[in-house]
């Protein structure tokens, strides 16, 4: 099913920043992403059995779960890479998606990859934004190197930069810091911290530092459980 998706823009709301997220006038949180009763099967394997999720503006939401529990499937369903069988996904605003395995053009340099994906987003100043992000993630010295010669961690950084180029309203990250050294891990959270008013949905089998997150869910038996 490739239907039942909506997109809306922010409009007309009076907003204020409260308790780590943006609130509508009257105290109700402003949802950026809503997932309602989403089901997904692969043949007989029922991976998602009615997932409900709401990510409000300004929130950093974590999803954990065992390997094969369906975390990546859920993200692919949310961003539109996979069709689903039942339910609804509503996205208010733009999203950036960082897949688990870096999807990059190996024969292009970091900078060329950035230019190519900037064109995809339709942004003119993608390279300067990319340079800024490369500096923040401490990998600007590799900008002229083809992606195939980058280390696993640097490839992952480029993967992340691509998802951030257009300054999305919600960043959807599938195990974003795998392969990072500790300094890069800290840079990653520093970068996330700078994204004021933006939402982040992070999937990772293990969540080490819970204080970074507004909410953490566990995907178990095809459903999300609040931790």
């Amino acid at each position, binding site marked *: 099913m*490739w239907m039942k*998706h*909506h*997109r809306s823009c922010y409009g007309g709301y009076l907003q204020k920043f409260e308790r780590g997220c943006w609130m509508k006038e009257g105290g109700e949180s402003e949802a950026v992403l809503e997932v309602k009763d989403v089901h997904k099967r692969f043949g007989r394997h029922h991976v998602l059995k009615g997932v409900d999720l709401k990510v409000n503006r300004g929130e950093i939401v974590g999803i954990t779960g065992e390997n094969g529990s369906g975390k990546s499937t859920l993200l692919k369903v949310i*961003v*539109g*890479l996979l*069709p689903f069988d039942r339910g609804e996904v509503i*996205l208010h605003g733009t999203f950036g*998606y960082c*897949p688990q395995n870096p*999807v*990059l*053009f190996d*024969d*292009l340099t970091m900078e*060329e990859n950035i*230019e*190519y*994906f900037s*064109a*995809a*987003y*339709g*942004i*003119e100043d993608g390279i300067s934004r990319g340079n800024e992000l490369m500096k923040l993630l401490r990998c600007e010295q590799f900008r002229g190197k*083809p992606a195939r010669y980058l280390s696993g961690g640097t490839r992952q950084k480029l993967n992340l930069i*691509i998802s951030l180029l*257009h300054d999305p309203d919600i960043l959807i990250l599938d195990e974003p810091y795998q392969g990072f050294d500790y300094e890069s891990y800290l840079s990653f959270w520093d970068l996330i911290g700078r994204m004021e008013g933006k939402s982040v949905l992070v999937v990772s089998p293990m969540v080490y530092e819970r204080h970074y997150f507004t909410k953490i869910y566990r995907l178990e038996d095809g459903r999300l459980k609040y931790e």
Partner: protein
Amino acid sequence: MNKIQKIFISLKMQALEQRRRIATLLIVFILPVAFWASLYYTAGDELTQITVPTVDGDVKMFVPVKKSYPLDLGLMAVAWTMAVVSFFSESGSAEKDRRLVLCGYGSWQILLARLILLTAVSLLTSVIPLSLFVPVLSPKHPLMLWLSLFITGLIAMEIGLLIGALIPRSTEGVLIIIAIFGIGMSVQGKAAELFPTYPARQLFRSAMFADDPLVLPFVEQELLILIALIIVTLIFWYFRIRVRRF
């Protein structure tokens, strides 16, 4: 950024990717010549009878073996190499192209850029063998000979792209390409007419041996085949890399 700019950037990036695969391109350019030369310089001087299409109808002619089969082999090599390069350029980048589509590219924009780039490669692939065929074989109509090589490359390119859009695994894809062009060049009679490079092959023979070569019907047929293949490829490619749009 408008749609044309996006196509231009995709073309530039795909060209940059190819530039860094210089060994692959060299093989593409050399292989047809190598196939032809390997048979040409080992074949005898005996004559063989072939059918040559002319403006006045098919004419049976006796020509030296070394002027006939080696050329067929060279033509087949042009088809193989162009199809394989096109197949890998499509199949190998499916996942990355899907990410581009997710980020905002249209699948048709990426495919159009690829078509432009591969047409340029096909042009070079046709010119390099021609630069040897003309002085060594003295064809009757060198320009028509080039046209047949170029058209063969274009049709092969489109078949490679179509198989790349349809078959996700590279081994199966390459084997199918080998089968299509291998059988297409081997079969004779009415069965040969079923293969998409048949009109180009006829044009090739006509340009090589006929005083009044038959050109237009073959070019028209190949153009129709090319357009049909592009449309079918675009449809399959769209479904292969589609994403849900919000």
